[in-house]
């Protein structure tokens, strides 16, 4: 039997009002501005852009404020907002080799052209809390060094030709890459669609999976071939103008992970690559993505699928934190009727169980005697 019930409107209204009140907090503390969030909590904003799959710093900042700093809730808000806007088209693929680099490091080559550029990194900080930041002390601008602009070469350019490392992939003018926003997922997915999914996947989930590949769940033996962070130009082809129009720049983090590959019947041993590309400055995420991308190429490279990170269905179906949140949190919704049904079932099973116990008891007595 299904019983419809109504009620709770007043409670819900008041809960929302209370949420607004608690969100604002102590009124004697000034309210946060979106500029403050976008400028000073920039990496949180980047995570919301990346996993919300929408590049717009101000919207991400608003979402963080509205979500009281709950980033997954903020990501949910951004995803919902996205659906209200029309899609004008697609950009030309961005050229990360022409990136205006703010950070670029390689763990494979010490002296690669362009150098090791540390940029604004947490690396080499001592992870000691800085009491100075509990205030608004003057902060000096970064040092400058007038350098000749040395082009920042890509990792594959360095060992290129020797065949030691997987060559750069060719551009194919093939059909449109699939879009997980438009088509229900059907496995196996193309690498292009997996990358789209991973790029907006949950950082924590991908981090854990990437970590597991290092610990032996899918042998990968990775090196951080190159990580670069910086801005790239975005161009959108305009049919009415007949050329691609520059629409501004976006900040991206790219990771080329280099992995040992023993080779197969078809291919000689060489280094293969896993790829990560995410919005904003999100190094951990780009690295985790690259590890997962490489693990998911198992089938393509003829490796045995022995661990969860190599299983497309497992990784891609569970990496989206909006989906995951929806399904986990829906358990909060009333399940009164389901539960009543289960209660009845458990009662019946208990009765049966008790009956069986009672039946076997005399036997046991006999056995004891």
């Amino acid at each position: 039997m299904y019983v419809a019930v109504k009620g709770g409107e007043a409670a819900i209204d008041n809960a929302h009002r209370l949420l607004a009140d608690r969100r604002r907090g102590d009124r004697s503390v000034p309210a946060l501005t979106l500029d403050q969030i976008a400028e000073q909590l920039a990496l949180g904003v980047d995570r919301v852009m990346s996993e919300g799959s929408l590049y717009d710093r101000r919207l991400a900042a608003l979402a963080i404020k509205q979500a009281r700093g709950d980033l997954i809730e903020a990501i949910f808000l951004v995803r919902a907002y996205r659906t209200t806007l029309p899609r004008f088209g697609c950009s030309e693929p961005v050229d990360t080799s022409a990136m205006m680099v703010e950070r670029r490091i390689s763990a494979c080559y010490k002296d690669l052209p362009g150098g090791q550029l540390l940029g604004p990194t947490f690396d080499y900080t001592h992870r000691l809390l800085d009491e100075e930041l509990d205030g608004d002390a003057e902060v000096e601008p970064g040092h400058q060094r007038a350098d000749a602009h040395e082009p920042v070469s890509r990792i594959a350019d360095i060992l290129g030709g020797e065949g030691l490392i997987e060559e750069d992939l060719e551009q194919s003018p093939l059909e449109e890459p699939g879009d997980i926003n438009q088509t229900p997922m059907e496995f196996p997915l193309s690498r292009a669609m997996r990358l789209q999914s991973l790029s907006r996947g949950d950082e924590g989930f991908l981090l854990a999976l990437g970590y597991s590949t290092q610990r032996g769940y899918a042998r990968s033996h990775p090196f951080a071939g190159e990580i670069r962070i910086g801005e790239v130009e975005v161009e959108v082809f305009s049919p009415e103008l007949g050329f691609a129009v520059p629409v501004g720049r976006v900040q991206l983090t790219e990771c080329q992970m280099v992995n040992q590959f023993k080779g197969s019947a078809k291919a000689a041993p060489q280094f293969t690559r896993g790829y990560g590309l995410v919005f904003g400055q999100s190094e951990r995420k780009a690295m985790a993505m690259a590890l997962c991308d490489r693990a998911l190429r198992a089938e393509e490279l003829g490796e045995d699928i022995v661990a969860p990170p190599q299983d497309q269905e497992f990784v891609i179906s569970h990496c989206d934190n909006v989906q995951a949140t929806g399904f986990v949190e829906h358990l909060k919704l009333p399940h009164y009727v389901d539960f009543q049904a289960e209660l009845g079932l458990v009662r019946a099973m208990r009765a049966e169980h008790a009956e069986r116990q009672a039946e076997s008891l005399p036997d046991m007595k006999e056995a004891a005697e």
Partner: protein
Amino acid sequence: MQAEAHMLEGGFAEPVLEAQATFRAVMDAMARPARAVKTGSRAAPPAPLTPLAGAIACTLMDADTPVWLDPRLSGSEAVRVWLGFHTGVRFAAAPTDAAFALIGDASDMPPFDRFAQGTQEYPDRSATLILQLDSLEGGAPLTFRGSGIKGEATIAPHGLPADFAAQWGENTRRFPRGVDLVLTAGDRLIGLPRSARLVAREG
């Protein structure tokens, strides 16, 4: 290629309101099949695309909905430029690749089964065909039954393919796969979703 200015004029003057009004009209037409719905909203596209078909295009089409134009419409560069500019659609080379089709001359259009029919799992991956007719009256009477129709509904649009009845019967047999039609003439439209079944007439 750079578009001529005159090909770019004639979009919705009030995009949000007019798109909403047109959407409402199309939705009503689909919910009440075989019944003409009047709509006041019009775009001003270049001929031979009609103001109503142009308005429906501006409302329903975007970069994610490839559209196929019949030769009558695709022959006009102005129509293609206008649609591209105001809706962002891409043009499908073949009817099977299209989410929408705009048909300028329905009497000579490809058979319905040449368009995307959807799959058993995803019947929504099918085409919606928007037909520009001379008139929604004066043709052979067609009587339909089905969801959204109280009893029966009869229409007599003029300018449909000669073998419409046979083709629509096939379309019904493919259910849940099949195409949906929007018939337009002047400022009125009729929806014929695949659920509308043609009632056979003796004689």
